[in-house]
């Protein structure tokens, strides 16, 4: 039996979708939900690593010969089916997502689990995996919409009125951004008659030799608006941070990872289709700088710990965008590397807040404190997470931020290097403020509460935090192990 024909990339999307449907039907049956949930997360955790790198044609339809002279499509070969491309970088992205999804499920495992809630996490994994792997622009649109629905549903799951308000706002913005992407796709389809990104890349390359068509610029602008929303860049940074802060912190860790990976995946699509549009890089750089600066300024003035982390996550997404906007091969490599590193580091902080919120039942930093000696190793791991997010050695983000700074200077933006360093310092200040509020400040009334006895809840969260800290340090010491795959990926793009 050939396992390569069983563990195909499509299974990375199909399995979580099937699991989501099953879990949805089991809603209300706690034991059954828990059993299916544990099996699902274990499979989801293992699948990315046992699936071999491959190009997968749905329905087994490989490229076909084009009708010679019968159409205005000039390519000799066309992809008729939806294509998924699965290589080392995609494996890394989906692997990390699976770890954080597992954390989001297992941390709350002793509580009564909602089937729909776990189903939405599975839907989140399936949709993000599809966006990361798909080479078909409409398929990406479909899964972006599913991603928006799953994220809104995970916020709704909190069940309070504030969460409902955030979810409805997110869906309204998501609906408009989705329509914007679809209109861009419609223009591309009407112009070129195809949806496959590799085919479109080839046909657009031939087309722009005679000058960039206006329709291409309009399509670029529309898909760019969709990218801004999905990445949580300015002007959508407020709604994105609102979503992170209203969701459970363990789920917010998963969500901010989704956002960063979708940021990179959609940028790859935009770059491959519209690299001929001269102002594209400047636009990306502009919104990325604004997102980074606004994010960190807003983080500094927050009084709620979840909002503070949410804005730091937005600022870090801006930093990823800066590397992509600079557009050189070194900058893009460093940027994708930072997306991976920051997803891991920020997750540590969200998980630590998960423990604090479990005890204090409040996100208000004025009403918490005194937890330094009460929550096991969580404060230590949280402090290490703060150092990691702030880009301190020997953590992984130091390696990526350093490379972005060098790339910015080399590309002729030394002032950008200074801005990134200042942002890192401001991020450290904001996070230390949060750390002080949670752990060092004088204790509150809840410290006398019986709930403070160590529970299995802390043990699981601590374990996931320790794994993430270990990964941050390991990548920090041996960055080349990850970088070499990202360098190959960037080279394979062929447009930088």
């Amino acid at each position, binding site marked *: 039996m050939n396992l390569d024909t069983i563990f195909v990339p499509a299974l990375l999307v199909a399995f979580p979708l099937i699991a989501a449907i099953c879990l949805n039907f089991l809603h209300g049956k706690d034991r059954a939900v828990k059993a299916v949930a544990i099996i699902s997360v274990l499979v989801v955790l293992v699948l990315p690593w046992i699936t071999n790198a491959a190009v997968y044609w749905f329905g087994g339809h490989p490229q076909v010969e084009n009708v010679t002279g019968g159409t205005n499509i000039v390519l000799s070969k066309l992809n*008729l089916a939806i294509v998924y491309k699965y290589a080392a970088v995609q494996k890394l992205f989906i692997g990390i997502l699976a770890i954080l999804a597992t954390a989001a499920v297992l941390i709350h495992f002793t509580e009564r689990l909602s089937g729909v809630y776990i189903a939405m996490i599975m839907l989140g994994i399936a949709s993000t995996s599809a966006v990361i792997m798909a080479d078909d622009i409409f398929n990406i649109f479909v899964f972006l919409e599913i991603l928006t629905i799953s994220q809104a549903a995970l916020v709704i799951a909190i069940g309070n009125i504030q969460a409902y*308000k955030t979810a409805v706002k997110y*869906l309204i913005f998501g609906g408009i951004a*989705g329509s914007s992407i*679809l209109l861009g796709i419609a223009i591309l389809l009407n112009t070129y*008659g195809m949806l496959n990104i590799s085919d479109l890349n080839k046909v657009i390359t031939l087309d722009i030799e005679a000058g960039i068509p206006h329709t291409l610029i309009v399509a670029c602008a529309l898909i760019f608006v969709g990218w801004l929303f999905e990445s949580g860049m300015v002007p959508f940074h407020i709604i994105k941070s609102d979503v992170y802060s209203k969701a459970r912190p363990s789920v917010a860790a998963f969500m901010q990872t989704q956002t960063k990976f979708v940021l990179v995946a959609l940028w790859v699509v935009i770059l491959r289709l519209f690299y001929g549009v001269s102002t594209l890089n400047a636009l990306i750089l502009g919104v990325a700088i604004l997102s980074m600066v606004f994010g960190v300024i807003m983080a500094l003035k927050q009084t709620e710990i979840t909002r503070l982390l949410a804005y730091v996550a937005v600022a870090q997404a801006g930093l990823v965008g800066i590397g992509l906007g600079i557009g050189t091969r070194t900058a893009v490599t460093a940027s994708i590397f930072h997306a991976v590193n920051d997803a891991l580091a920020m997750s540590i902080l969200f998980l630590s807040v998960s423990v604090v919120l479990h005890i204090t039942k409040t996100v208000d930093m004025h009403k918490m404190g005194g937890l330094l000696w009460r929550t096991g190793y969580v404060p230590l791991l949280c402090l290490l997470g703060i150092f990691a997010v702030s880009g301190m050695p020997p953590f992984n983000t130091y390696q990526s931020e350093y490379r972005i700074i060098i790339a910015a200077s080399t590309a002729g933006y030394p002032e950008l290097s200074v801005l990134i360093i200042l942002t890192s310092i401001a991020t450290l200040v904001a996070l230390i403020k949060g750390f002080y509020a949670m752990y060092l400040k004088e204790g509150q009334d809840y410290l006398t509460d019986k709930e403070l006895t160590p529970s299995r809840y802390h043990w699981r969260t601590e374990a996931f935090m320790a794994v993430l800290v270990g990964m941050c340090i390991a990548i920090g010491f041996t960055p080349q192990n990850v970088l070499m795959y990202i360098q190959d990926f960037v080279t394979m793009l062929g447009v930088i």
Partner: protein
Amino acid sequence: MSLETLFQPMCFFTAAGLVVVGLYAVIFMDNLLKKIIGVTLISDGVNLVLITGGFNKIVAIISPELAEKGVSSAIYEGLKEYPEFAAQAAYPLPSALVLTSIVISVSIFAIMLAIAIKLYNHYNSMSCSVIFKEVDQ
């Protein structure tokens, strides 16, 4: 000018109208339900653009004129037998895409309506200035 030649421009014009009305509703109307309807109007407008593109024979995988002359490929061999169909048929891909898009729009619409009911039950109002007042403060 025949009705057939006007059909596509009119469809695009209608789509533009739907998008503009939808955007107006989302931005300027206070009622949450009207905002939600605005989002669906935008989505409908975009779907109309997409499906109208299917009538654009230029981007068809095989042009009807050549199909009539018997030009075909192994994949579209069947079309050679039916030149009349090839001349009349629209590009089928947008129809399939719009179907998917409609399903997604309906899902989002349903969730937004469910949340709107919850918010109405809590605030006894559909006015965004009432519902989101606390957020503004």
